[in-house]
């Protein structure tokens, strides 16, 4: 087991699993802090994954694929805003609808555009390559993890401190927090909370879109129906547990990503695939149970 954990190829695979969850969770954090209950991260991710393949296939460059993924994610954010903010639909209902919309639209377009069912792969889909970092790659254990990853991983890593500073210091970041904590004060200051929430949703869509791009044009070069496979829900749990604070979020995403990657690794060790597939969800549940229980106990302790 220890051999496995110290295996450089295991370390190297962790970021592949961390990136989509982290990006989606950072997007979810924007919404959480802005007071928008967005549990449609799964749908946003899936949309991004599909749009990334679409963009990369037609443009021949993964950068336009990622741009398409961001645009599609932002469009989903706008749909969410239209129905939740402007038309005042319930956030949970809108989220459920958007998750279904993403599942339906991606499979529908998969058949309508590429004329295939299940999966679409083509040599014309150019994915992101690995970026080698000369000196860093020689560090034991950490080296293979930090070097040789897709640019999206580095973007995700950079997003953590950026989002932290943005929320703590930037004017819009402050407004986002105000929208979540005290919308009245914001309104009194002459700023519409809904406008701020709309921007948070669009930013969330962009981040989730990039997360989807990592799934489809960095980890592999293809799109598979429903390829987000619950990772958006894991991101929702991460947001819920950390109340949308970037650094704790990073730790949780790292943990979930490592388990995800571990489950992928132990597949070759004789354990049935169904059990290894189950591991990320069981790990998420376990963390959720332990942290919730600990918090509930502490909350009770404070009262007495």
């Amino acid at each position, binding site marked *: 087991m220890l051999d496995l954990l110290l295996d450089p190829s295991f370390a190297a695979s962790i970021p592949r699993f961390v990136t989509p969850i982290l990006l989606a969770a950072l997007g979810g954090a924007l919404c959480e802090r802005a007071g928008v209950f967005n549990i449609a991260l799964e749908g946003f991710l899936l949309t991004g994954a599909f749009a990334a393949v679409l963009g990369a296939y037609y443009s021949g460059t993964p950068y336009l694929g990622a741009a398409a993924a961001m645009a599609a994610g932002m469009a989903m954010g706008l749909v969410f805003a239209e129905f939740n903010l402007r038309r*005042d639909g319930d956030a*949970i209902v809108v989220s459920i609808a958007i998750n*279904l919309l993403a599942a*339906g639209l991606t499979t*529908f377009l998969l058949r309508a555009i590429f004329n295939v069912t299940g999966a679409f792969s083509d040599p014309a889909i150019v994915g992101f390559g690995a970026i080698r970092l000369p000196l860093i790659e020689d560090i034991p254990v950490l080296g293979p993890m930090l070097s040789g990853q897709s640019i999206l991983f580095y973007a995700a890593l950079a997003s953590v401190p950026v989002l932290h500073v943005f929320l703590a210091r930037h004017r819009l970041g402050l407004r986002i927090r105000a929208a979540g904590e005290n919308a009245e004060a914001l309104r009194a200051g002459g700023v519409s909370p809904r406008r701020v929430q709309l921007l948070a949703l669009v930013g969330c869509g962009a981040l989730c879109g990039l997360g989807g791009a990592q799934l489809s044009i960095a980890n592999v070069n293809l799109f598979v129906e429903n390829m987000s496979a619950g990772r958006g829900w894991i991101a929702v749990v991460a947001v819920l547990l950390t109340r949308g604070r970037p650094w704790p979020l990073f730790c949780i995403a790292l943990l979930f990503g490592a388990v995800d990657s571990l489950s992928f690794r132990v597949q070759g060790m004789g354990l049935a695939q169904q059990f290894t597939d189950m591991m990320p*969800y*069981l790990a998420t549940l376990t963390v959720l149970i332990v942290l919730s229980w600990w918090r509930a106990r502490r909350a009770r302790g404070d009262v007495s």
Partner: protein
Amino acid sequence: MAAHGTMRAVLPWVITLLWIAAIILALLLFVGAPLGEALSGFWQGAFGGRRHAYLMATLSRTALITGMAISVMLSFRAGLFNIGGEGQLVAGGLAAALTAILLPGPPLLVLVAAILAAMLAGALWALLAGVLQLYMGVPLLVGSLLLNYPVRYLASYAVAHPFRDVPSGMVQSHLVPQETWLAYFPGTRLDIGILFTLAATAFALVYSYWTVHGYHTRLNGLSADFARTVGLPVRRLTLQTLAISGAIAGLVGAIAVFGIHHRYIDGMLVQPLYAWTGIIAVLLVGMVPWAVPLSGFFFAAVQTGAAGMERAAGVPKEIALVIQAVIILFVASRVSGALSSKEGRGDGHA
């Protein structure tokens, strides 16, 4: 004056319908489908066919969707955001198939035992989510959802390895004994599974409108604080409601096994999104019990109609999912107060 008032009430709905129609039209034009053939294909697929074969398929699907809708409706009305219907459905389906395959005995007895096992499995899986919420502080919304995945893979494992029908070459269990299969209505290919759904619906109606227990859970749904303040046993009500919800979802799994597939096939309850369709069927009618079967029939018709549209005009049948999602998006904003997010968040601190 009256006419003016009616106009004002109706106009938003007309605009909503026009929006939905425009989006569907745009999708059809996008795939370049001949519109006339697409529409007649839809109609045929949902209600037509030789000796109404497709209508029977719609009704068969209605049975499952309505069953799942009734299951979640009981939770939702009690203010419980149980979106783990899929896991409860799968637990029920697997329990039903395995019981029927493994248990020797007279067919009728085996069938009854299998249905009870399915209901028990569904109830236990739902209770697990409830226990996690009540005693561990895990919000039901995410707890129930995450529990979908382990049971999905467990069922997949069961029919891929220990209970697999290997010679069939597919990832599926052996057939359940033929004597336990649900009968067809005379002269049709519609199994009597829909009668079970009707029974569950009747139960839900009586329960919701005429029993004290149902009234108490409804109070809990409208205001958990009020329910607690007047001394209702909120924890017990929560667990009982979840158990009933889960049992009905399990029953639906049994209907799918004995009425339709006659075995457990990997993904047969997950892929068609029965649980999610059930949820949106409830949301469409704002959780009004008597309207739920109509809504279930409507969404079943959208799905079988889309399949008909694919046969007749080459429109990918996945358009059904898009149509359903769009309808719910527009309706969610029209039916106000159907659900309240604040209650649903349930951070476990309440």
